[in-house]
């Protein structure tokens, strides 16, 4: 555990009387890709939002780069180097693609390198450079996901979290985006947390995995050691 970049330690979250997550623990090492797998309502997004400071946990703590960030506000967490690509690739629809990306470099630490990072993002997603003047609201779903990923990259994060990146996209686009995610991980040594429902895709891309069921982590291990079909049958009954 000494090498962990981000570790979630026994986090429980409640909404009123409803317990959304019960003592969830997992960690991500530097440069690794971890996938968090589970069905709708398993508590994956709750955990992610808690990590990002959008909810406060009832118990447990979250440690990032050796520092307890549990009680920090979202914007402080972001400026420490943790970025989330939220579900559905939420863009600022009335702003241009370029302005959307520049918003990503809002944390002071990222501003100096903004120009350089922007070029890099355009290299990674050439289509965004072609459309940089267009309002983000007029783009297709896949392109908007790219804008969201680009925006998260602009903050030069040490750890990137993708919340159900494949939701609502065509298989070809998903494959393309996954390739780019792996490329980001290889080239920048950015740690990545993938939140997924698609067991096969998630296991294929990640070094290790956690399975969540009804708010608890029920299984975790190395991705190469488990067969996606067995996992699916065992936990999700499909």
């Amino acid at each position: 555990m000494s090498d962990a970049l981000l570790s979630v330690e026994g986090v429980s979250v409640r909404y009123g009387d409803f317990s959304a997550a019960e003592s969830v623990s997992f960690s991500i090492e530097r440069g690794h890709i971890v996938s968090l797998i589970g069905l709708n309502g398993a508590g994956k997004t709750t955990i992610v939002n808690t990590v990002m400071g959008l909810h406060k946990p009832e118990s447990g703590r979250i440690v990032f780069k050796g520092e307890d960030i549990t009680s920090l506000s979202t914007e402080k967490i972001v400026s420490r180097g943790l970025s989330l690509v939220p579900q559905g690739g939420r863009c600022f629809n009335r702003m241009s693609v370029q302005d959307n990306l520049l918003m990503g470099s809002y944390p002071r630490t990222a501003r100096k390198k903004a120009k350089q990072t922007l070029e890099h993002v355009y290299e990674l997603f050439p289509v965004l450079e072609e459309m940089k003047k267009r309002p983000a609201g007029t783009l297709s779903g896949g392109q908007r996901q790219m804008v969201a990923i680009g925006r998260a990259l602009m903050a030069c994060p040490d750890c990137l979290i993708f919340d159900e990146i494949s939701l609502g996209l065509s298989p070809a686009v998903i494959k393309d985006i996954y390739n780019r995610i792996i490329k980001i991980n290889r080239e920048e040594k950015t740690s990545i947390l993938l939140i997924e429902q698609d067991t096969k895709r998630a296991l294929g891309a990640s070094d290790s995995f956690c399975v969540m069921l009804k708010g608890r982590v029920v299984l975790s291990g190395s991705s190469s050691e488990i067969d996606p079909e067995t996992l699916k049958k065992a936990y999700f009954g499909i």
Partner: protein
Amino acid sequence: MYFVQIIVNGILLGSVYALLGVGMTMIFGIVKLTNLAHGEFIVLGAYLATVLAPVLGVDPVVTLVITVPLMFLGGFLLQYFLIGRAMKKGNEPALLVTFGLSIILQDVMLMVFSADAQHIVASYSKSTVKLGSIEISVLHLVLFAISLISILSLTLFLRYTYIGRAIRATSDDSDAASLSGVNINKIYAVAMGIAMASAAVAGLCVGMKWTYYPSSGGSYLLIAFVVVVIGGMGSVPGTLAAGILFGLAQVIGGANYGLLISYVMLLIVLVVRPKGIFGK
């Protein structure tokens, strides 16, 4: 020629009406709040200029150097410590807090400055220039320049600076903005600061053009509403266009009917395009 004269006056005055609406539209669009105290902010701006100009012995326009930062700070603190906290309790509580502020400010100004009519006089208040066969008041030109510069610099600020972009992003999707590292409460406070700074400028302009009282806030608020709703909430260029439309109605219709025309105009806009001409 009389016709051209009217159009020119309408446009020049219209820019001042737009200025009344700019602060309001920012708060509507970004903080998503109806600020019922905006009229009193404008009157406060007018009083500050009235008091400061003779004390410093400068042209009233120069007082902006002091009033704009001062009012910005006031707005920032007000939002950060008072209105922002009420917003956590819901929309209606926040609205009522601005309402409470509006009546408090009104009486404070009444006590401090008395109920007497006030007017800001500059050396060029009565002079005119001739352009061909039309005569234009220098005052109107000055007001036009002030309004245009303010609105333009606000637009540029919103478009090209980090904070400006963060303000636009917050108005688009505040959760996503906070995930980009934006402190939403601070951005709201900056927006209120800008709104109040714009009220300082607007106050100077209305004070130079018309006489005003501590109780004038209500009518300025109403003009601001009309301009903002016609222009589309949150749209700065829309506010400018609507202000000019409003100015033309005032000049063509005269004091009473001018307002009546604009109210009817507003109701028609609301029925035909419920989100304003430039609204989305």
